[in-house]
């Protein structure tokens, strides 16, 4: 038990006095004091196990000095440690010799060669010749243990980093030690491969070449790699990454150990979809994205035809002029832009053209004015909160590394999780209380949580509610994670529930689990109706959000629509409306990737994408970090900022925002938003807007813990950027930050439950048909297929069997689909994944949704 009353203890390391925190591990205390103790199994982000015995040092004790593992031993006041004695040296040399005894001598053909901790240790300390004259241990050389990972058991040094990651961090022991003694091996089950969303992390932390990633294998040698530190923009967590390339070809993304964000971890989507970026022509054996748009296109005679930038911009400008009224122009999207790109487009569209019809969300988010009024929590605060309430989708599917960060608290620190939910959730087994709600009922339950009065007809019991309320209190210290658990449920239902919680639990703070990459930054830059750059808000303005724009397109009031990045068709839940809208409006698409939207585009302006561009982004907690280019964009794709600026020029106005730096400067000068300071200090963990900026020095990254990552910057922003919620006062005199009273939510009436129907819970999958997945040869094969999950008893009730195909009666007509039973599905509901196709390649999900109703009810019948 560390003595809580003391804040420091003193130990002696090799005769030097060292200060350490009580309960700190000896290995870290010594390291901070400049004494690096060799190690293999120790990893700073996992519990120590003291298995490899490389870190043995001499520690004085009652029975004289004994060899103790520094990675496991906690410091105690007065501890006397020797790390350099002959005895220590002999023990460490002995361990290294033992590790090498059975280790193959295949460094020249090993992926890890050149960045291998074992190799480095051997060069530094090894004896150079072997005394091991026996036959080495033999296993079949690399075996595929999952879709993305190969295992070479001969190289394994049994450090248990991978198995510990799987069970301790990811919470899915899909790989485990098997066997005993020197035949011990890492093994998956033959019936269940290693198909975790986090498998790449095990490759990254393997201290030898035992685990290798299929997409990276043999693609480069470490010494040929160049690296920049950047931010992953695959989702809104914004993990810090080291992006590496060999020449102008992206080869690898590794997780950087960012204390406030990702602790070194990444999800496989963020790690491995880098091949969706690569649009260059390469040798045929190289995975290469097919989906990149590399030159401007204009529709001529019904066909999209390559043209020069000049021609394309002129054509786009002409369309905008022809629209006539500014209110006939709108823009949808923006979450894939950098803050600078978003700002430039906002300035062009709102500032120059004068339209208020802007929306970075696709009707699948939350009310942006409501968001502005929520007291925000950081990821760290949520991870440290003793009570967390979630009203969101399955975080493992939507924001994987946020899932890891939160899971740690529930799994290892005794934090309590209360789920308010109608959908599946990977955190559920760790939840203290699950308050189940049927689709449409979230506001009812939110009100009950706040008031303690439980209306009849909910699925929650009185005592359950009372227990949950006792944990939550008035919300003080509670972090509420809000997002969209069910895309078939009207956004306004969730908005209402969130608003009830915000009013009723005044002590609580919120973490907004919006999924799309820089959606937060785009909203902060004003890409929403009534919003203004710098988290501003104009109470008198009015404009259309995405659903309204789509309706206006169909009705002909919005005649020209700019689609900013992303794939509109793949993201809007009401696919029918989206298709009709695109067909009825002129469309200018600004995108780096192809997609179904392009079939309706009149002008296509090719943009650079992640790992090709510079700028800043803002993650879901409001943290502004820099993104950096590692490779050039293919063909003649341009950065978003340049496209906005050039289109503005072609249209007739010079925005004065011709470069990312100019944009960043303008953002910071006019709104106080820390774009420029972050951009100029690229390699740091960024700053959270709305918070005071305290410089945090990052620990130097230990190559033993993060092999393969070249040095990263360890210090960043040293001074405060001052107030951070200034507004762009130049737009209108009324602009200000939104207050609670500014939130005006429409009430929706949820229809009564139909006893013969199941309510649809439409969920997100990590491996959906999004652009990154579709464009990635490495991950594309993993895209989920559609199926309908139903509780076994509901299926029984309907007289149906699992695995059967059933007829679904939906508003758009009848269709067939395979059903599977799942005990975790709420009775009276069915779960389907959005953005997937069924095994016949049909998008039946789109046909299920009843866009005319706030919830979708489906009737299932035998064929």
């Amino acid at each position, binding site marked *: 038990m560390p003595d809580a009353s003391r804040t420091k203890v003193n130990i002696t390391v090799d005769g030097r006095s060292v200060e350490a925190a009580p309960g700190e591990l000896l290995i870290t205390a010594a390291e901070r004091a400049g004494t690096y103790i060799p190690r293999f199994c120790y990893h700073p982000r996992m519990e120590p196990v003291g298995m490899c*015995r490389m870190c043995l040092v001499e520690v004085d004790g009652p029975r004289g000095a004994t*060899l103790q*593992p520094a990675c496991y031993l906690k410091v105690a006041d007065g501890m006397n440690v020797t790390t350099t004695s002959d005895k220590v040296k*002999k023990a460490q040399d*002995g*361990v290294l010799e033992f590790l090498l005894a059975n280790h193959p001598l295949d460094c020249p053909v090993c992926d890890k060669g050149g960045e291998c901790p074992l190799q480095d240790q051997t060069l530094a300390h090894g004896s150079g010749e072997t005394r091991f004259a026996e036959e080495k241990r033999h296993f079949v050389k690399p075996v595929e243990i999952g879709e993305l990972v190969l295992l070479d058991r001969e190289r394994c040094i049994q450090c248990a980093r991978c198995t510990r990651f799987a069970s301790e961090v990811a919470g899915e022991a899909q790989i485990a*030690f098997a066997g005993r*003694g*020197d035949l011990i091996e890492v093994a998956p089950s033959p019936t269940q491969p290693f198909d975790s969303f986090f498998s790449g992390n095990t490759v990254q932390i393997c201290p030898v070449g035992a685990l290798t990633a299929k997409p990276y294998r043999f693609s480069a040698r470490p010494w040929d790699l160049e690296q920049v530190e950047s931010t992953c923009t695959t989702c809104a967590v914004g993990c810090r990454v080291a992006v590496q390339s060999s020449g102008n070809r992206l080869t690898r993304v590794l997780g950087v150990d960012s204390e406030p964000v990702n602790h070194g971890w990444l999800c496989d989507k963020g790690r491995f979809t880098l091949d969706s970026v690569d649009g260059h022509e390469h040798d045929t054996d190289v995975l290469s994205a097919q989906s990149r748009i590399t030159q401007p296109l204009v529709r001529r005679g019904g066909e999209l035809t390559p043209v020069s930038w000049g021609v394309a911009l002129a054509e786009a400008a002409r369309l905008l002029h022809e629209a006539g009224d500014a209110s006939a122009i709108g823009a949808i999207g923006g979450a894939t832009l950098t803050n600078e790109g978003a700002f430039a487009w906002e300035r062009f569209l709102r500032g120059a053209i004068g339209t208020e019809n802007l929306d970075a969300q696709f009707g699948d988010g939350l009310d942006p004015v409501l968001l502005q009024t929520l007291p925000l929590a950081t990821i760290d605060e949520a991870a440290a909160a003793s009570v967390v309430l979630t009203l969101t989708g399955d975080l493992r599917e939507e924001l994987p590394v946020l899932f890891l960060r939160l899971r740690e608290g529930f799994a290892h620190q005794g934090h309590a999780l209360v789920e308010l939910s109608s959908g599946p959730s990977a955190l559920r087994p760790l939840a203290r209380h699950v308050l189940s709600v049927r689709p449409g009922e979230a506001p009812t339950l939110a009100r009950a949580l706040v008031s303690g009065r439980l209306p009849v007809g909910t699925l929650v019991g009185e005592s359950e509610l009372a227990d949950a309320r006792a944990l939550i209190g008035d919300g003080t210290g509670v972090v509420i994670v809000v997002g969209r658990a069910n895309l078939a449920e009207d956004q306004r239902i969730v908005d209402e529930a969130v608003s009830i919680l915000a009013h009723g639990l005044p002590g609580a703070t919120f973490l907004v689990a919006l999924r799309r990459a820089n959606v937060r930054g785009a909203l902060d830059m004003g890409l929403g109706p009534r919003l203004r750059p710098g988290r501003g808000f104009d109470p008198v303005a009015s404009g259309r959000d995405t659903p309204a724009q789509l309706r206006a397109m169909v009705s002909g009031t919005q005649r020209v629509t700019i689609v900013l990045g992303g794939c509109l068709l793949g993201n809007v839940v009401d696919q029918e409306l989206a298709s009709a809208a695109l067909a009825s409006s002129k469309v200018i698409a600004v995108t780096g990737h192809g997609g179904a939207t392009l079939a309706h585009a009149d002008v296509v302006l090719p943009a650079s994408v992640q790992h090709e561009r510079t700028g800043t982004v803002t993650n879901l907690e409001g943290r502004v970090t820099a993104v950096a280019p590692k490779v050039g964009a293919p063909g003649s794709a341009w950065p978003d900022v340049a496209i906005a600026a050039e289109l503005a020029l072609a249209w007739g106005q010079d925005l004065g925002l011709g470069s990312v730096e100019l944009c960043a400067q303008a953002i910071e000068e006019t709104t106080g938003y820390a774009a420029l300071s972050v951009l100029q200090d690229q390699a740091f963990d960024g700053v959270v807007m709305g918070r005071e900026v305290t410089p945090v020095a990052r620990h130097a990254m230990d190559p033993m813990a993060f092999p393969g990552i070249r040095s990263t910057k360890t210090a960043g922003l040293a001074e405060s950027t001052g107030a951070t919620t200034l507004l762009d006062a130049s737009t209108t005199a009324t602009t200000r930050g939104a207050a609670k009273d500014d939130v005006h939510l429409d009430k929706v009436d949820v229809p009564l439950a139909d006893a013969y129907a199941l309510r649809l819970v439409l969920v997100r999958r990590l491996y959906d048909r999004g652009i990154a997945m579709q464009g990635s040869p490495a991950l594309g094969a993993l895209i989920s297929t559609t199926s309908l999950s139903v509780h076994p008893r509901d299926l029984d009730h309907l007289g149906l069997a699992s695995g059967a195909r059933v007829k679904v009666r939906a508003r758009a007509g009848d269709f067939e689909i395979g059903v599977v039973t799942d005990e975790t599905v709420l009775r009276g509901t069915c779960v389907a994944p959005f953005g997937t196709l069924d095994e016949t390649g049909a998008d039946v999900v789109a046909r299920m949704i009843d866009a005319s109703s706030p919830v979708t009810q489906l009737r299932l019948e035998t064929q």
Partner: protein
Amino acid sequence: MATLDAPRIVSSRRDMADSFTWVRYLETGGYNALRKALSMFPEDVAAQVDAASLLGRGGAGFPAGRKWSMLRRSAISYLVVNGDESEPATFKDHYLVERDPHQLVEGVIIAAYALQVTQAFIFLRGEFALGLERVQQALNDAYAHGALGSKIFGSDFSLDVVVHPGAGAYICGEETSLLESLEGKRGFPRIKPPFFPAVTGLYGEPTVVNNVETMSNLPWIINNGGAAFAALGAGRSTGTRLFALAGNVKNPGVFELEMVKNTFRDIIFDPALGGGLAEGRSLKAFIPGGVSAPWFGPDQLDTPLGQDEVGALGSMLGSGSIVVMDDASCVVRATWRITKFFSRESCGQCTPCREGSGWIERVMYRLEHGGGRMEDLDLLLDLCDNIAPGLSWPPQQTTICVLGPSIPSSVHSALSMFRDDFVAHVNHGGCPHA
């Protein structure tokens, strides 16, 4: 001549064919001790065990009373009985679980009462299929007669005992590994500190782990008093102990002997005990306390069978097993087989034990079967030194548990005592006897 007049404390029913039955147990005084214990305060029961100065019979020889009172004021959650008995040539617990399961069960209930735990587990090695059945039957009988379960014999004390089958892994005898195994995991010993399960044991809660024989002594101690037990033996080694004698003796078996009053010579040569070696053979070496212990030679035959007496000469009484090797046996072969055992049984957690055991075994194999080199002898010692630095006794260790540092015991002993035999193997290109 051996001193054989001490009472049989744990093997009093050894000559009865039905010693394992409820009826026989009751007829021979069974469960009187439990009734007596239940009439005492729990702490007074513990005090008797403390007074008996009963040393643990599992191998480490830690006083049971001290272990029980380590956390005097806080509650112990679980009692776990160690019946994994896998130390080669140790077979005394085998005798106790198969032949006297009720005595074990009564001991467990008494200990549980003294410790005030309501849940106990008896971990038996899985290969004891018959023993598992006999202990389960003994528990069923005890439940049926009110000696176990709720309100035992009408007292306020309730207890549940579960027999837990192991599944074949020597390391699960090591108490922290046993707990991991009991938690349903791979038997990886836990890293110390904490040094005692009494602090963090099963499910992280305070737990007492004691050996089967340790438990089996309790009915006698309660019936006769701790002082009577302490009056037997000498010094720290009180009472009697079961010794398992094996190897090249005429009459191998389990013998209950008063501690310290007898010597190795007595147990090996007394006609009532080991009966000596085969005609015409002489003693080459013997292992005094399980294959983890350093070896003794004929010069140590007169050492008394006492914990400290053996410890003073650089070995241990350990698990109470004595293996006799006569002059016809090959010490290189014996050593190789012991290293093979450790190599198969290393749990594989720590590098020095996992890799060292395999490496040493392979070198020993070559020496015995051909292909040995003179430099192998120094290599062996150096590899041993890398597992147990200094090759001293008790060993220092580079490993998590003491299985690793047990590997050098036989290698180091054999090499120091019989280096010529090793040299002969090298020169001959294998075993000269084979």
